[in-house]
């Protein structure tokens, strides 16, 4: 089968000033699995939305089975023969399997559902997937996630779909269920359906897909046959650079102690945490979610109530208010960028300077021109991609938002930077920039506390790594003396 069942040519889409997609072309052929690969923010989700009719492209054409394809909405797309299987399944939990499969395409006479005729179609669809064993009259709420996914796929088959798009379908499945899913996809392939498979996991893609298309920054970075393409070639396409450049090393040496904690305890967590941090030092904090890492940083800034313990910053012991702690030289980049880290509706300039407006203020009145110049200078230094300092933060990509949050702690000239998951949900290119920034800040004599769930980045970036579990700081060692598995066993509380 050489002809494309679904084709996109030169599709572009912008949201405000952000160009989400730029001249993207791809084709999915019947009886083939096309892998769509890309980092977060590469434009995969926008592409999905265009395919499903949730948004319409600014320019470019789409074809489905030789006909022009321009869906006006998800239902329209489904009728035309394009089905989406999202990470979050779209099922009515209280309806049974048959009702869910036929949802929106019920066979009826005078408004009454024709049960028998429906059941036949549902059985046919499930049979095609090799899952004729699924009971039809059970509410889908009671099925496993994997079986629910089968119900969704059966729904697509029952509507005689030509193309099925899977968005990260294995993210909530066990290994066993993944195997089953792959068998189902094989069956779909053999019945001549075109499958588009979106995933981060390269091993999965190699197993299931025939061809690949890599998206980067909203454009196609490359595409071709998977056979004969190495994994590092694909990674290079995704990242746009060699992987070794991800963790740049900037030499830095530790100076005098700038932060010391003695028995710091919060309401529940942290519990009795003590350590010292020197200028020019990067301290990583590892631990499972809920181990008290975030709460430790929040107690340091007095955002959460401090029950006991002392915090000494430089030569002073500041009062327990965020204002006093910031004044003493702490700066926090929150893990919750949308809810806490940035005021999304306000401008870059506002967000960057909220914690330090004094340089531009005379008797409370601001010199906005001077402020704008200073902020734009910082934006250039951190390579923030925006039209101007007066753009609102909500219009920026995740990576650029994170840079604005970093600009704020740099602009306030904090001596100790508390970074909570600073690389979460941002693209690899920006991650590399942030690693480099952290290292060069340490070289300038700043101290950094770097909280992360990603052990590899902690081990590569930090000088020392501490592991937290159940609110206490279990152990601090130089990074060279940790491995990923020793961190994990310490975080789980098992002796290695």
């Amino acid at each position: 089968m050489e002809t494309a069942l679904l084709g996109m040519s030169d599709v572009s889409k912008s949201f405000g000033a952000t160009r989400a997609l730029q001249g993207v072309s791809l084709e999915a052929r019947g009886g083939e699995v096309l892998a769509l690969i890309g980092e977060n923010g590469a434009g995969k989700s926008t592409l999905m939305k265009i395919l499903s009719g949730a948004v319409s492209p600014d320019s470019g054409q789409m074809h489905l089975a030789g006909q022009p394809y321009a869906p006006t909405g998800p239902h329209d797309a489904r009728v035309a023969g394009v089905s989406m299987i999202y990470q979050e399944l779209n099922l009515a939990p209280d309806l049974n399997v048959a009702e869910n499969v036929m949802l929106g395409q019920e066979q009826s006479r005078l408004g009454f559902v024709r049960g028998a005729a429906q059941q036949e179609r549902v059985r046919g669809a499930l049979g095609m997937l090799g899952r004729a064993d699924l009971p039809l009259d059970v509410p889908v709420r009671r099925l496993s996630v994997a079986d629910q996914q089968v119900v969704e796929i059966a729904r697509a088959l029952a509507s005689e779909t030509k193309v099925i798009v899977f968005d990260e379908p294995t993210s909530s499945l066990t290994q066993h269920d993944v195997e089953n899913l792959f068998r189902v996809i094989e069956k779909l392939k053999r019945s001549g359906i075109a499958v588009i498979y979106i995933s981060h996991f390269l091993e999965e893609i190699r197993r299931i897909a025939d061809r690949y298309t890599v998206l980067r920054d909203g454009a196609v970075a490359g595409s071709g046959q998977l056979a004969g393409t190495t994994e590092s070639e694909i990674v290079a396409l995704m990242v746009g650079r060699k992987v070794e450049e991800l963790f740049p090393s900037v030499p830095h040496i530790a100076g005098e102690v700038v932060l010391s904690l003695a028995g710091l305890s919060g309401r529940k967590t942290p519990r009795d945490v003590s350590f010292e941090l020197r200028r020019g030092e990067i301290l990583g904090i590892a631990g499972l979610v809920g181990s008290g890492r975030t709460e430790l940083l929040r107690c340091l800034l007095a955002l959460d109530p401090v029950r006991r313990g002392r915090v000494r910053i430089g030569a002073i012991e500041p009062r327990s208010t965020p204002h006093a702690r910031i004044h003493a030289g702490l700066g926090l980049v929150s893990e919750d960028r949308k809810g806490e880290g940035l005021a999304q509706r306000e401008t870059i300039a506002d967000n960057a300077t909220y914690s330090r407006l004094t340089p531009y203020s005379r008797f409370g009145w601001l010199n906005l021109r001077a402020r704008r110049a200073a902020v734009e200078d910082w934006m250039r230094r951190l390579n923030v991609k925006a039209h101007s300092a007066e753009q609102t933060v909500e219009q920026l990509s995740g990576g650029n938002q994170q840079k604005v949050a970093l600009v704020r702690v740099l602009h306030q000239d904090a001596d100790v930077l508390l970074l909570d998951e600073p690389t979460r949900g941002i693209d690899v290119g920006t991650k590399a920039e942030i690693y480099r920034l952290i290292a060069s800040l340490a070289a300038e004599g700043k101290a950094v506390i770097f909280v992360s769930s990603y052990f590899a980045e902690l081990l590569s970036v930090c000088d020392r790594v501490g592991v937290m579990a159940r609110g206490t700081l279990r152990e601090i060692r130089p990074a060279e003396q940790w491995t990923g598995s020793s961190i994990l066993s310490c975080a789980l509380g098992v002796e290695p």
Partner: protein
Amino acid sequence: MSGLSSESARPWSTRGRQWLRTVLGPFLALVLVVAVFTVADNMQADGGKFATLRNAQNILVQSATVAIAALGMTMIIISAGIDLSAGTTMALSATVLAWFLREGYPPPLAVAIGVGTGCLAGFINGSLISLLRVVPFIITLGTMTIYLGLAKMIGRSTMVRPDRAQIPDWMGELLLPRLKYEWMIFPPGVWLLLILALLVSAVLRYTVFGKHVFAIGSSEATARLCGINVPLTRIAIYTIAGFFVGMAGLYQFARLTIGDPTSGTGKELPIIAAVVIGGGSLSGGRGSILGTLTGALIMQVISSGCTALKQPNPIQEIIIGAIIVAAVTVDQFRRGSG
């Protein structure tokens, strides 16, 4: 390189365009409402009285009381708050002012105490919200009734009527459409409103305090993270808003020349409506003084226009209600597409 270089090619900064859009919407609505009533008025046999300077003066005078209170309400709503006690606080201020005049205190002192009562009421609102950590809606729902009760206590459940002689001339002329000096075009109370509006607008845009108001409204968590003293700022916002409500009490007294404890009941709604029609968002972070003034004018133009067309009160109310719903819907739509 960074995208900053492309900026010179863009005549409007993003914030500037956004500002233009939020202000332009209410303004176009005002122009439209004026145009519709002018045409309709000129079509009736004894028309031609709507689009006159005299009527414009009347409209401004009649909207001034709501508008001046709405200046403070704009700040509160930008900070994601609300003040349901604005109406009864206004009546309380007017009643206190009337009482001090009637008891023979010097008028400047009576005005200062009347307006000060508004500040104090606002200070209490802000302090309760900050200290008890209860949402503004509930706190001010409570103080709304408390302030009504206090006003009734002062007025002994009836109106406080100072003598004609006890009310100084300047107070009577504050909002008198018939001008002492023709060159003034509008009475002094309208000019005072405009000056205060300019001042608040500048404070919101160009001061540290103004930035903090927007920060708290946009995201209180972010404001805390940045070391902004949220409780103190909030108390300041409500106290300043109380000042403007106190001024509204003065304006109301100047027009009625009596202190009526119950005259403010329900008046918080047009004040809030002015802010909302003017583009203020009850979820915080949005609102402008220019929009609020336009919102107050739109409501007054509709009621004046309906009077000119001899339409009864219920029609005015239905139209104003529809405008509120339309304004918010249009705003949401704009935000969704932008």
